[in-house]
Structures are given as C-alpha cells and as structure tokens.
C-alpha cells in the first residue's frame, strides 16, 4: 500500500516518532495509526512522555526523528496546516475568566476566522444544547469548574476541527459532570471527529475505543480496552495500567 493512501485513511499516523532533549529521549520511536472518528486514549504515568508526544502532533515542537501526519499533513513540514485542522483543550483551564461566555466564544471563533454569521449559528446550536449552563452574559470566572470545562470543549470544537486533542480534560471535575463530558465526546465522535484524549482516570480509559499506554517514552501496550485486559489477564484497565507503570524506571516529574 502507498503511504499517501494510508494518510487519507487515518486521522493521525506516527512512525517511529522520536523527540530527544540532548541525552534525554522523551519520546522513543512510537508508532500508531488512529482512524477517523476514533476515541483514542493516550495513557501513561506523569513523565512518561505523553505531553511531549502530544506537542509534536499539535505542531508545537519538531520531532528529532521519525514521521507523523495529522489530518494528512506532516508535523515537521506543515505545522501551520495542522493547526487549522485541530482543536485543543488543555488540562489547565484555558478560557478567559474576565470575559463573558459569549465574548470567549466570539474570540476563539474569531481567531479561527469564522464569520459573524457562522458564529451566530454556532452559538444558537450550543446555546440550545446547554441552555441551562450557558448564561451568555455571565463572566466565565463565575461558572462552576464542570461548566467551564464543558464550555472549553465546545469552544475547542467551534471551528469543526477534524481532530481534537484533549489533555486531561476532566481533571478535578465531579463524577456526574465527567459522565456528561464523555457524552459530549461520544457525540463529537459520532459526527466524525477524531478525539485524542489523555487521562489519569482508568474508568475513562474503558470508554475509549482504543488505548495506548506509554512507559518511559515508548508505547508499552496498544489495543481496545477488552484486548488489553485479556492480554494482561487483568480485571480492569486500572490493573493493566498498574502492571505497566510499575515497570517504569524513569522518575515522574
């Protein structure tokens, strides 16, 4: 099969992707393919190299060696095209607290170049979906954390990106809101959006279509939650994770 055909089929491909900072190899020859519309869980202990890998895929840092494509664009040579096609939500809350809900939406829609008409249409859809939570003219700083995170996710989707990167999106959120959050993730996946999720909650790992677990910069396991549990003869994803994480030699940061 030609490599280019592969790129069209997959939302994200990585072949021996590596990042070294001097002597230290943060990400060590990782390879995977992620299908369109897939919810891909990217797990690993702190310091395993998840964030570095994610930054390379977002076009924020250049790989030392290896290749990766995101939405069909090469991460080394076409980071600008990648940025137009991805959404990003970080573990840190990333909206402006001193702006209202509407102003935040307008701002992020504005920097992705959406027209006023598009913005209005989007707001209508989101506003109808979350009428109870989106007090349009309320300052974001006054919203509860769970609502902020949901708003953050909606805004990451506002320009209809092909792939959304979620970096520990549910940190510090209560179980009920986490459940609602995952319903939003499923809905996005059904619309064809690919979701690349990092998390420390192992129950969330069970919700993913496929999961990879990074240990010391390499991918130690990759497969559906059911496959992985079978492979490691474990009851839950939590057991799988603990078995692998205990092999780590690297200090967590």
């Amino acid at each position: 099969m030609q490599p280019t055909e592969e790129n069209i089929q997959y939302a994200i491909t990585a072949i021996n992707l590596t990042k070294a900072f001097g002597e230290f190899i943060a990400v060590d020859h990782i390879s995977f393919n992620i299908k369109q519309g897939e919810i891909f869980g990217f797990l690993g202990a702190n310091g395993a190299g998840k964030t570095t890998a994610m930054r390379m895929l977002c076009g924020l840092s250049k790989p030392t060696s290896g290749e990766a494509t995101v939405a069909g664009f090469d991460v080394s040579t076409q980071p600008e095209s990648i940025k137009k096609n991805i959404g990003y939500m970080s573990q840190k809350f990333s909206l402006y607290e001193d702006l209202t809900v509407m102003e935040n939406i307008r701002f992020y829609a504005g920097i992705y170049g959406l027209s006023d008409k598009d913005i209005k249409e989007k707001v209508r859809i989101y506003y109808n979906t979350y009428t109870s939570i989106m007090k349009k003219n309320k300052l974001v700083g006054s919203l509860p954390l769970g609502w902020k995170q949901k708003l953050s996710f909606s805004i990451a989707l506002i320009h209809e990106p092909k792939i959304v990167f979620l970096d520990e999106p549910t940190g510090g959120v209560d179980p009920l809101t986490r459940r609602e959050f995952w319903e939003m993730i499923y809905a996005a996946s059904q619309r064809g959006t690919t979701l690349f999720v990092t998390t420390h909650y192992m129950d969330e790992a069970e919700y993913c279509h496929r999961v990879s677990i990074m240990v010391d910069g390499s991918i130690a396991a990759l497969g559906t939650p059911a496959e992985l549990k079978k492979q490691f003869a474990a009851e839950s994803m939590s057991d799988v994770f603990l078995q692998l994480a205990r092999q780590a030699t690297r200090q967590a940061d």
Partner: protein
Amino acid sequence: MKEQFLAFVKKEWFHIWRDKKTLFILFGLPIVQILIFGFALTNEIKNSRIAIVDQSKDETSQRLIDRIASSRYFDIEEFLKSGDEADAAFKRGKIKLVIIIPESFGSSLKHTNHGAIQVLADASDPNTASTLTSYMQAIVGDFQSDLNEGKKLPYTIVPEVRMLYNPQLKGAYNFVPGIMAMVLMLICTLMTSIAIVKEKETGTMEVLLVSPLKPILVIFAKSTPYLFLSLVNIASILLLSVFVLGLPIAGSLVLLITLSLLFSIASLSLGMLISTITDSQQTAMLISLMGLFLPTLMLSGFMFPIENMPLPLKIMSNVVPAKWYYFIVKSVMIKGVGLKIIWKEAFVLTFMTLAFLGLSIKNYKVRLAIK
C-alpha cells in the same frame, strides 16, 4: 488575518476595561504626578527662616537687615545675641541660615570701604544650603551696588544674566518631559509584559499557540491597546502642562507626538522582550521595575544631571532609552528645535526599537522550538 487581529484586540480591550483598578491607575497616575510636581514640589525656596546676629547696630546694618527682610526668599525668625547661639538655633531645626554682622561692620565700611559679614548655612541639606547662600549673596550684592550709587568706581563688570527658554526658572520645564518618559515606560513596558506573561501563567497561551494565529500576530495584537492608552496619556499630559501649568510647547506638536509614539513602541518592544524571557507575572513586574523603571528615573537626566555623573554611569546612561527620549522632549517642547537638531537621538531610539523587536521575535521562536 485582519479579522483575527481585530478579534484579538477587542478581547484585549475587554481585559483592560474590566480591570477598573488598573485602568484608574493608568489614567490617574499621570494626572496626579503632573499636579503634584506642578504645585506641591518645587525647586524654588521661598520664605526660608533665618536668624540674624547684629553686633554692629548702626544705620548701615539696619538697612541691610531691612533689605533681607523685604526679600520674599527670607523670613527673619529671630535675632540672636551672639554667634555662639547659632549652633543651638540650627539644632532647633527651623533656621536655615544665620547672618552675623560683626561689630566693626559699619565703621569699617565707612572708613576703609570694606565690610565683612558672615553667612552660616545648614548644609545638612546641601542643595538648599547652596541655593539659599546664592540668594543671600545676590541680595548683599544688590545692597552693595545701592551703596555705590552716584560714586564712580574704577571698574565695574555687571553680568547681565538671562535665563533662556525658561525665564522664570520653572521646575515644570524639567519634570514634564521626565513624567512623560516614566508614564510611557510604565504603561508600555510593565503592562505589556504582564499582560503577555499572564496568558502564559493561566495556560491560554498554549491554546493560542495551537491555533493558526501567528505568534507575531499574538504579540502585536496584545500590545496594540497599550499603544492606544499611551497616546491618550501623551495627550492628557500635554494638555495639563499647557493649560494647567502654563508651559507652552515651543516646537512642532506633530514631531513631539510622533517621537513620543516612537518611544512608546520602543517601550512596548522592551515589554515583549521581557515577556519572552519570564514565565511569571511577578518576575515580569520585578524586571520591569528594577531593570527599567529605576534606570529611567536615575539615568535619564531627569532626576540627576548626566553631566555630573562618573564616567561608568555616563556610559551606562546611553543604553537607557528614556535618556534619549527625555532629551528629545526637552529640545522639542522647550527649545522648539526641529528634527535637524535631534535626528541623532531619534535615530538611536529607532535603532533600539528595532533591536528590541528583533530580539523578542527571535526569542519567541526559540522558546517555541525548544519546548
């Protein structure tokens, strides 16, 4: 591109507008400073209290004392019996000068045409002491020429002193340019560096970096509202100094504003540079205050004349952008000179701006690549 930029500037404006306390400081500070410097602080010394020891007690000494008393610079607080009391009088703290007219003053002047008086000054405040003694010398000099009236002197040289550009020796001519430099530096450097670093701290910068926005656009869009704010402040300072302090603008207003904008841009780019090398708002604030604000105050020539500085400080003062701007404002505003005279200073400022801009853009990219 244009829409992105506008959306960003609008958002930035919300940040500034919502933070009422900072906004108040930004607009209130220059006004308060101008008024304080204009009315409360002045280099002129009026109505200083002095003491007199008159041991001569004759007509001439009385005329001299009357002359001193009628001056607006001095109020005679008390008469002392002898010079020995002078020390105690100074130590009570009210008296700045003691004039001792010796017993022989009147007769000696009459018979030998030569009289001597002693002027003691409290030099624990050296500036005041030297100002007051020179006032006193001038008064005695006047008195002396009055005594000589009608008599033919062998030689007389009278220096006729004219204070050009600032005939009334107003302090305002000195501090208005200084305040302009300080305020522009505060708004442009301090506020911009804090605003950019704040986005790093809260994590929104990451989201901006992942977006298709060019980093350079982020930096420019963030500083645009501050450039606007500094324009408003230039206007308010100039209006106050013309209409409240009565300080005319001798040179071209367009040139003054253009060069003020140039200085604002230089300060903005310094703010950007600071924001690229720091990750916390506190650090950014410390660097702006210690690294820029103090040198602006000390080395621009505003507080202390550069001519009197030791050589190392003189050399150091050249890298302080405010020094060049201060000279430009003084020249244009007070002496009324044109670009022909100050092109060198304007060139240095332009060069500094470009250097700071280049460095901050380079730094910004380097940081991105490493992470």
